[in-house]
């Protein structure tokens, strides 16, 4: 389960990193959003100011035809000549006609809402678009700085707040004689209305609210998707506007009208500057309360830009890797265990094939096998175990025993080696069915070791790969009759060695005597050894009989020379969970 667990840890770590990144991204996004809001509002404010300045310039220029209009000039001259400065009726009528004509001559986009013709003293001689003062002969304009300037030869713009309305104003002198001061002035007023604000907002792509000290005067939205009702917040915020920068430079810092709405105020040059009139640009701010804000704030376009194929591939890939790991480490070995358990239950096998398991499953299989054997033994049954030569050959001799692959030195238990009849089981197809170890000979209640005589190879399929097809090689000496186990007791899993050529057997023993008795024993020992190694889960690849026999021969020769014995018996046993060989000198 190492891979699966590592994968879970990796996925958990990836999720943690992803969440960390998202939270960091939220903070970063909000900070950048606030910064962008400030910069955007400053830019908007400047843009609107420039636009208003350009508008004033163009409206001043548009008023030029009025300042040189002959009819207006004559009307103002006549008004100046009239008694009390209030102008004769004819002069008034002429001036009004002239104003209408001037207004018609203007380009529509720069046409003013109101036009005044003012005499030299500042009295209004005629008006256009400001009927409220019709008949009011006391009405004047000469006190306003813009008009006073125009009457003294200057053209100028201004911003007035008359009652509840705000006007952008332009004024020019009306000159008729270069040798005299101007005959009067023409004054144009354009109300700062929603229409004006809308047009300005569209051109500058901003959201604008004009305000007077009384509150919001007009507003316009030039940014798609911005709610015009949000501009109402400007009116309520004005009461708390005590910005030092606003008082000094005329432009406030960015003020947050709400969590998602910022504004920057700017005074309008003119009378409105001193009165607290101006405009505010407003922008919305998209802030995220948390990682989910990315989802709630996303539109269809954002969602369409997501690389879904990549995301799906990553998700599926991660899932596939996880499933693969769990299959490898859980499902597959469990399936193998279930399958072997089924076969075990059906009698198809006597124990679990430890080699087919790994890790904890292998350990569990070994324990299960040992547990089953122990249970069988307790019940008096016969278990399959590596041959215990002591049960066959008697107690191990006192002389040091040797193992082909693991030579445990004999302790005192192996000091006396009784004469034991040599194992007669031999032959190319000999196999030893393990019997439970016994200290000596068969005893009551214990079945004698079963030595299975050479038998023909099992039918194909009993154990793939173990038996090799082909006729068995001729044996130098037929094996003596041994008690044969019944056919039903034949172990399908017993280790079988295919026909070993006589030459090979002879070569294995090295004495040139052909397939001797000893050679047959070695074949059996080899089969036992291979089987035991497999039961212990040890690899057997490359362990050929030839190599095995060479090792046995070498050890046999050494022991025979050391102990002056005639023969050496090799037996297989399990030590520390590993298959081992024990060599016992036979002096008989």
């Amino acid at each position, binding site marked *: 389960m190492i891979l699966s667990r590592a994968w879970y840890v990796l996925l958990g770590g990836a999720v943690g990193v992803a969440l960390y990144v998202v939270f960091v991204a939220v903070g970063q996004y909000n900070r950048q959003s606030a910064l962008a809001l400030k910069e955007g509002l400053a830019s908007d404010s400047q843009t609107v100011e420039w636009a208003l300045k350009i508008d004033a*310039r163009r409206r001043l220029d548009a008023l030029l035809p009025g300042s040189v209009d002959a009819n207006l000039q004559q009307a103002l001259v006549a008004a100046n000549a009239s*008694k009390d400065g209030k102008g004769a009726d004819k002069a008034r009528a002429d001036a009004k006609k002239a104003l209408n004509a001037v207004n018609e001559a203007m380009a529509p986009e720069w046409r003013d809402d109101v036009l005044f013709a003012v005499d030299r003293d500042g009295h209004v001689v005629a008006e256009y678009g400001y009927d409220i003062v019709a008949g009011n002969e*006391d009405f004047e304009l*000469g006190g306003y700085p813009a008009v006073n300037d125009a009457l003294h030869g200057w*053209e100028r713009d201004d911003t007035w707040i008359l009652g509840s309305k705000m006007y952008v104003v332009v004024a020019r002198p009306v000159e008729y004689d270069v040798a005299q001061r101007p005959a009067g002035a023409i004054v144009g007023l354009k109300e700062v209305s929603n229409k004006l604000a809308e047009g300005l907002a569209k051109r500058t792509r901003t959201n604008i609210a004009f305000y007077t000290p009384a509150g919001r005067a007009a507003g316009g939205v030039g940014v798609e998707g911005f709610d015009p009702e949000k501009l109402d917040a400007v009116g309520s915020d004005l009461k708390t506007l005590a910005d030092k920068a606003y008082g000094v430079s005329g432009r406030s810092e960015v003020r947050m009208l709400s969590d998602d709405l910022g504004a920057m105020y700017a005074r309008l040059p003119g009378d409105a500057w001193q009165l607290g009139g101006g405009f505010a640009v407003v922008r919305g701010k998209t802030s995220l309360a948390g990682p989910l804000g990315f989802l709630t704030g996303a539109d269809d376009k954002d969602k369409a830009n997501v690389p879904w194929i990549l995301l799906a591939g990553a998700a599926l890939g991660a899932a596939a890797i996880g499933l693969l790991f769990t299959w490898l480490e859980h499902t597959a070995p469990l399936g193998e265990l279930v399958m072997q358990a089924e076969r075990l239950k059906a009698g198809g096998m006597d124990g679990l094939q430890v080699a087919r398991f790994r890790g904890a499953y292998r350990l569990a299989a070994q324990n299960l096998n040992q547990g089953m054997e122990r249970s069988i033994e307790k019940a008096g049954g016969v278990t399959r175990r590596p041959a215990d030569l002591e049960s066959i050959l008697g107690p191990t001799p006192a002389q040091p025993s040797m193992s082909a692959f693991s030579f445990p030195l004999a302790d005192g238990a192996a000091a006396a080696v009784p004469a034991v009849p040599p194992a007669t089981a031999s032959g190319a197809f000999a196999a030893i069915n393990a019997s439970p170890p016994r200290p000596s000979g068969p005893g009551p209640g214990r079945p004698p070791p079963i030595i299975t005589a050479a038998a023909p190879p099992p039918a194909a399929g009993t154990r793939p790969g173990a038996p090799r097809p082909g006729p068995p090689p001729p044996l130098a000496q037929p094996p003596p009759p041994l008690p044969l186990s019944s056919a039903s007791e034949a172990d399908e899993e017993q280790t079988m060695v295919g026909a070993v050529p006589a030459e090979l057997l002879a070569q294995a023993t090295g004495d040139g005597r052909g397939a001797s008795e000893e050679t047959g024993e070695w074949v059996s020992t080899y089969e036992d050894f291979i089987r035991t190694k497999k039961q212990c889960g040890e690899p057997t690849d490359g362990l050929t009989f030839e190599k095995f026999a060479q090792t046995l021969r070498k050890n046999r020769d050494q022991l025979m020379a050391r102990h002056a014995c005639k023969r050496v018996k090799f037996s297989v046993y399990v030590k520390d969970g590993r298959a081992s060989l024990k060599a016992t000198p036979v002096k008989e």
Partner: protein
Amino acid sequence: MHDRKRRSSVRVEALVAAPLLVAFALASGDLRAGGAGSTPTVKGHVAGWEKLVPQVYADAAGADSHRYNWREPSPTVKADFRKLSASVSRDVCVVAVGAAAAPAHEPLAVKVTGGRLTPATIVLSPGSRLSFKNADPFNHVLYEVGNDKWAANPMGPGATREWSASAPGVHQIRDELFPSLIMYVVVDPNAVDFALPDRDGAFTLTLPAGEYTIRAFFDGKPVGKVVEGFHVAEHGAELREALALGGDAR
């Protein structure tokens, strides 16, 4: 400036009975003869007001005043005429100051319209009253600077509001809604009479016989030449020399 003679610049709408009688008497020639019971007059004129510039307009013309985007000389107006100046009939007041305390003047109407108060400067004796009348179609909120008793109070179109001269000194009347609207009221206990020149600078004072100091005021301050010890006879008098204003108000 001097192309036409118009005497309408004296915008004293409510005149006292005595000056009216004096005017009629002058027209009939009685006072010129110095008849008994008539009030002598002093005629004169001022000069040099072209050099005076009301402070409110000087401030509004400043480059750093934030009062405009564009302010340029008109190419169609000769440079000689492109100079800001006072309106003599509105911004200048000539007053005769006697040796003793003068009685209060009759109520005077002050017009509130056009971004200004007319007259813009006046000299009164204590107890005199002013009646401000809103001639605009929108509200004005007049107040006296530094006088809580005459604090800001909205005046609707056509409405009037009274003001009474009390303590001697310069009183400043302003409007909360119109920064250019300003009036200076100089209260002088010895101010016997005042006059607002016409468009040509001519003025007429109605004074009892005696000695007076005659001076002009602009933007609430005395300006120009001061005529002291001017003797007014029973038959009246005339200032032969113009009162030079000279633009030294500041």
